[in-house]
């Protein structure tokens, strides 16, 4: 187990050789990433939302990784739906980090899920959202106000309300919480 932990990550070229060549879509802001992700996924393309490598980091903290073979189709889809892509780049940097890093903490009567920088806590018995914390994005207080007091799965979805990286991370935490509670 420890050996696995200390193993070096594969450099990008090795990753490319062992897998399918990928590219990344870079956007100016997070709302466009969220819109694009929804559109692309609806059409059945395989994509992942990730944190950008440091050298291409601009204003937006998220990029979409896609299979290069689908570049033309995805580009056309986004153009048709008026989603502006700032740049399309091949994946050369293995420092891309997935945003879906979860941690779960059980507080007895309450359960907390953290995804990236956002935490959601529910009351286990009633499955009511009791706290939203983390982030630092301007929409966090709004998201918290809308979600606290709602029952899991019955209130509005963070994805529909949020327009920032925090909103996106909160959606991941919310979905993970729903998944855990349905087990």
């Amino acid at each position, binding site marked *: 187990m420890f050996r696995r932990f200390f193993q070096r990550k594969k450099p990008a070229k090795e990753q490319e050789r062992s897998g399918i060549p990928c590219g990344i879509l870079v956007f100016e802001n997070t709302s466009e990433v969220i819109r694009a992700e929804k559109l692309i996924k609806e059409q059945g393309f395989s994509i992942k939302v990730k944190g950008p490598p440091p050298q291409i980091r601009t204003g937006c903290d998220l990029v979409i990784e896609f299979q290069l073979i689908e570049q033309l189709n995805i580009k056309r889809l986004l153009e048709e739906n008026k989603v502006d892509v700032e740049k399309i780049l091949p994946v050369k940097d293995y420092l891309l980090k997935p945003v879906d890093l979860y941690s779960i903490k059980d507080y007895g*009567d*309450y359960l*907390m899920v953290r995804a990236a920088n956002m*935490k959601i*806590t529910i009351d286990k018995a009633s499955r009511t959202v*009791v706290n939203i*914390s983390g982030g630092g994005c301007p929409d966090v*207080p709004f998201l918290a106000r809308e979600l*606290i007091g709602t029952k899991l799965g019955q209130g509005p979805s963070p994805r529909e309300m949020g327009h920032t990286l925090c909103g996106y991370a909160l959606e991941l935490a919310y979905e993970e919480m729903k998944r855990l509670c349905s087990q």
Partner: protein
Amino acid sequence: MSEVLDAKGFSCPQPVLMTLEKIKQLEKGELVVKVDTQASRENVSRAVQKQGWTVREIKEENDEFSLVINKE
């Protein structure tokens, strides 16, 4: 005499959970919740208001906040 809950030194969501437990026990009356971050101050305020409690006053001293909350 108000009850006092010291939630200083705890990180989110613990101050909120401690407060929710306390107001569940008390049901009504007055409670002073002490926290030491802006985030905890906001989160505790939001959580208690959702439970029908009122934030009557927030005192700030030396980077610590005392939230006076009550329910009739």
